[in-house]
């Protein structure tokens, strides 16, 4: 460890604040965290701010305005390590649903004077704009994973993050498969672990907060899901949810729509 404490900066882009809040929700670890790191910029937590460069920058949210495109480049210049925190930052998140429609039409629906809005047609991941050193998925992120990443950085080792799907978390909890047993549509087999399988454990299907896994056979899952649809178009809407703009989910939903035509 270097003699000085590593500096940390936390930034918000287009998002709900929930992932930053997950840091403040580490009630048992927050004071230790503040002891191990030098919090140099974290607007939600403190008025005190010091200029960069910073050892670690954590970025929540997706890029949705021309101003955000410029701002993320400046943050990249100031940061030794840049972490994209949460599904907005890693895939565009919920606001990336605009990417599937005409953003102008959406703006007209919500706003009387859309001509005064400054927005991009798409909401995109941080990595589409600058180099990202580490992506942490989740809507919201799992605070245990946030701690693991920070602790790994402080100890100069690789973080140990799960590469398996929600299915394994169900098995570990002893949750009976909602897809097989109850015929409830669930994209847990194609979604990265991290939440603790809270949806299947609540008797409902997973809706993909932690983004797609790398290795699932999506075609096979999709065949099952389309047979179980409770309302027309349910499979497409399941993929086009929180992580809908992540390439794997985006492509399979596009294919389904093409087939339907």
């Amino acid at each position, binding site marked *: 460890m270097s003699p000085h404490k590593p500096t940390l900066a936390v930034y918000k882009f287009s998002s*709900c604040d929930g992932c930053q809040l997950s840091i403040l929700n580490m*009630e048992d670890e927050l004071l230790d965290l503040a002891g191990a790191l030098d919090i140099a910029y974290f607007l939600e937590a403190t008025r005190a701010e010091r200029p960069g460069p910073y050892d670690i920058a954590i970025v929540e949210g997706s890029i949705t*305005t021309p101003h955000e495109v410029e701002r993320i480049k400046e943050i990249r210049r100031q940061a030794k390590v840049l972490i994209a925190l949460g599904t907005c930052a890693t895939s565009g998140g919920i606001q990336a649903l605009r990417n599937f429609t005409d953003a102008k039409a959406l703006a007209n629906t919500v706003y009387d004077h859309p001509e005064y809005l400054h927005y991009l047609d798409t909401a995109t991941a941080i990595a589409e704009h600058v180099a990202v050193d580490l992506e942490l998925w989740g809507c*919201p992120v799992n605070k245990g994973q946030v701690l693991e990443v920070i602790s790994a950085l402080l100890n100069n080792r690789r973080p140990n993050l799960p590469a398996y799907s929600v299915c394994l978390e169900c098995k570990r909890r002893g949750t009976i498969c909602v897809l097989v047993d109850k015929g409830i549509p669930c994209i847990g087999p194609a979604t990265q672990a991290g939440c603790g399988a809270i949806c299947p454990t609540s008797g409902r299907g997973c809706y993909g907060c932690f983004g797609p896994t790398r290795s699932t056979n999506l075609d096979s899952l999709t065949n099952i899901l389309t047979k179980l649809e409770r309302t027309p178009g349910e499979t497409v809407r399941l993929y086009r949810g929180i992580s809908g703009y992540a390439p794997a989910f985006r492509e399979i939903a596009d294919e389904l729509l093409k087939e339907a035509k």
Partner: protein
Amino acid sequence: MKNIEVPALARVEGEGGLFIGLQDGKAVEIRLDIYEPPRFFEGFLVGRFLQEVPDITARICGICPVAYQMSSVYALERALGVTIHPQARALRRLMYCGEYIESHALHIYLLQAPDMLGVQSALELAATAPEVVKNALRLKKIGNNLLKAIGGRSVHPVNVCVGGFYRWPKAADLKALLPDLEWGLAASIECAKWAATLPYPELEIDYEFVALHHPDEYGVIEGEILSSKGRVLTIPEYENGYIEEHVERSNALHSHTVDGNTYLVGPLARLNLNNQQLFPAAKQVIKDIGVELPLKNPYKSLLARAIELVHFYEEAISLVNSYKPEGRSYITLKLKAGEGTGATEAPRGLLYHRYKIDDQGLVQFAKITPPTAQNLPRIEADLFALAPQIVEMSHEKATLTAEHLVRAYDPCISCATHFLKLKVENV
């Protein structure tokens, strides 16, 4: 005196700035700049199945996702003409208790109090008063644990559905929280006593207070919309009384009453209008610390939150003790076309939703009016009222006093922005 300019407000939810233009000792221009980008929620809710709505609207705000879920499910249940199981209703109140506890504890200690304690953050306070901060974090954690026990996780919980809950939480999991809730009740009473001693800046405003009111319980999930000026509306009548409109020098769509007045929603409004419905410990603490109602000082929202914290801890204990899950946790829905409204009290104030759905249960139209959009014109008006005081102060103190006023509202800029309409004219 120089203009007051805070390019990025700290310790608020979301991204905003503050500008106060001063001339000859008077405020000539006040702007609360909202640069949080629009996210178009009302647009992309269209075409989604009604059961997906609470999962989507939760993402409007990470601090008060339960409020968004609740206003959504009540509106959609009204559209379908569904009444939920009485225990499911009680469980929704218990869940809301969890959200109030975590959100209020966060705001009291981590967001607002540092302004009166001469520190930049609660983390800085931990160096000199570690016990205060540890207790604060524990008070907050218990709310999060309650949310986790009911909803699977505290941010964006997954158990609420149109018609009730996907599953009943295990009674044992809720009962296990009782020792912590009892500790929290005692600690929140101490918190309210401490809150009464803080050096609030002086400012009295003759507000029109607006809150949900229910004769039998502290108004949170159902009831009528009551105004301190005597207006009483049912929830479906909300838009007849409260209107959104562009005003000059604002980049937000500002709400006002049909009479053209600004109004205040949030903890002061609730406490002033609904104190008769508080639980006994909260009524007692009001007596013990000698609070005279109505509270009209916006900075004392912190004190109102602390009193509510006592209430919600006590109500949570009562709801856990009477928790008896029986039968199905949700009503089976029969889809039909319709329209429904829902209004619940988010920790920051009244949150109104209206949806139209088709006979397949797909959303055709969504309208959401968050509390911060309703309060924005009041924040600006309060800053004008504050201006004569702050021109007498040092620039540093004036800036802090103005920032503190904004923070006292606990503005949720992420929530507000997704519905704010940007300014028509550049000033």
